[in-house]
């Protein structure tokens, strides 16, 4: 499903993103990526969605090989992924409904399908009532739910979340994590970068820990151990 083979990313200014990472993530897994700020969590995720390309090694995602990928193929890779960010990234002048519908429009789904799937996705994240609201009219937690609905609506094989609860209060954070867990139960591979110790400890999922770009531990039912 996702495979890193001795992958290194050095930024043009010399900063180490990730270094000699080798690991694979199987279909249906739930994986936390943890580590201090600057340890390479975001870089790891950006390599998966081809926002960055590796300087060395290879990354395989859903059958795509990221190395030397033609520009025109990138959109297809991204459509096989759902992405969630700390800062939400919703289109500001589209309603919640339109934001979710947008993800289906770019894959040229039938209008009938869009009308059917979008309410389902919004229902799944518990936002049916706010379909007509614009992002500016929604709370942080609600915006993140819209992002989740958008990430899910095309039934991606993999969902990637970069500190999805970084801007949310503890209660809302738990609700979002619960949703991610539910999405995972339905078969989607979920990869979450976070440094929310309590959540990681409570969920008992696979934990990949990075330190200055290097993979320092990879535990099946892990905890947020030996930090600091």
């Amino acid at each position, binding site marked *: 499903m996702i495979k890193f083979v001795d992958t290194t990313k050095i930024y043009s200014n010399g900063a180490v993103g990730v270094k000699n990472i080798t690991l694979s993530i199987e279909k249906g897994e739930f994986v936390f990526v943890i580590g201090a700020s600057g340890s390479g969590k975001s870089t790891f995720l950006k390599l998966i969605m081809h926002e960055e390309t590796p300087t060395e090694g290879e990354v395989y995602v859903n059958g795509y090989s990221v190395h030397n990928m033609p520009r025109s193929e990138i*959109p297809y890779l991204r459509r096989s992924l759902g992405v969630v960010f700390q800062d939400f990234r919703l289109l500001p002048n589209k309603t919640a409904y339109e934001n979710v519908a947008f993800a289906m*429009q770019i*894959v040229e789904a039938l209008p009938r399908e869009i009308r059917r799937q979008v309410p389902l996705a919004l229902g799944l994240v518990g936002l049916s009532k706010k379909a007509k609201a614009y992002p500016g009219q929604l709370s942080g937690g609600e915006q993140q739910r819209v992002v989740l609905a*958008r990430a899910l609506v095309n039934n991606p094989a993999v969902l990637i979340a970069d500190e999805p609860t970084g801007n949310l209060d503890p209660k809302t954070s738990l609700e979002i994590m619960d949703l991610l867990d539910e999405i995972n139960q339905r078969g989607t591979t979920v990869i979450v970068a976070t440094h929310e110790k309590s959540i990681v400890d409570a969920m008992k999922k696979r934990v990949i820990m990075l330190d200055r770009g290097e993979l320092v531990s990879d535990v099946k039912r892990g905890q947020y151990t030996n930090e600091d």
Partner: protein
Amino acid sequence: MKIRTLRLLTREGAANVYKNKLMSAASMVTITTTLFILGLVLLIIVNVITNLEAKKRDLQVKFYLRVETTRLEQEEVAIFIENCRATGVVTAYEYESREQAYENAKKNLQNESLMEGLTPDNFSEGYFVTLANPNDSDQFIAKLKLLSGVNPKWITYPKQELERITGIVRVFNYAAIFVLVVLMVISILLISNTIRLTVFARRKEIEIMKYVGANDWFIRFPFIIEGMIIGLLGALLAYLLTSQAYGWIVDGLNNLFSSIMITNLELMKFDQFAIRILVVNIIFGMTIGVIGSFMSVKKHLDV
């Protein structure tokens, strides 16, 4: 891309014109201003050229027959000129008979004694010819010289005058092209700057679209529609402004010139080129809008 996607993106572009009112207005003002200036400059140039061309047509070829010609030679010339008029080479001509030449000479001379002993037979017949196309003059004169009745030394044509006017017309033609190109470039730069601001303000949006997996055309198309609509609106507004302003300019010039006793100024009516101005405006406005959009989106697409 599927038709329904194109429809969707077209609607999206149209909606964006309205949603980004401020930027749309700014871009439109840019296009309107350029096309307005362009329109007026071109109208002035067209007027100058039209007047000069009219002046060129007033320049006549004058020629006289030999004093001693046969009846046959006179008829040959008359038939030649008539033919030229029938085929449209000549628009009009005046004929001066020997008697008229004699009378005119008598009238024009201060010292009547110069006419003593002269009869109409000492004079020759003249033709004053207006050519349809002044540029045909060389060819026309060459043909005249083949006629035995015509005295080749007595063919006159204000060639230098013609060349001078032709030169001026050419300069104005180049000026028109120059103005066209310069204004076009300026307005593309201005518009792409304005749109770049819009795109800059919306680069987050573009980024998001890319993260969700939209391809380049999906992102670009609405911007291009947006540029097209803004260009069209700008063109229409410029057309209205130009027609108003041109009316005022013509009135002003006519008043000015009649007050200094020049009445033969031939200013054209706006109606005479209303359609052409409209078409030029629309083509240029939309082209500027589309090129501007294209250039400014390009930069932000590489995410």
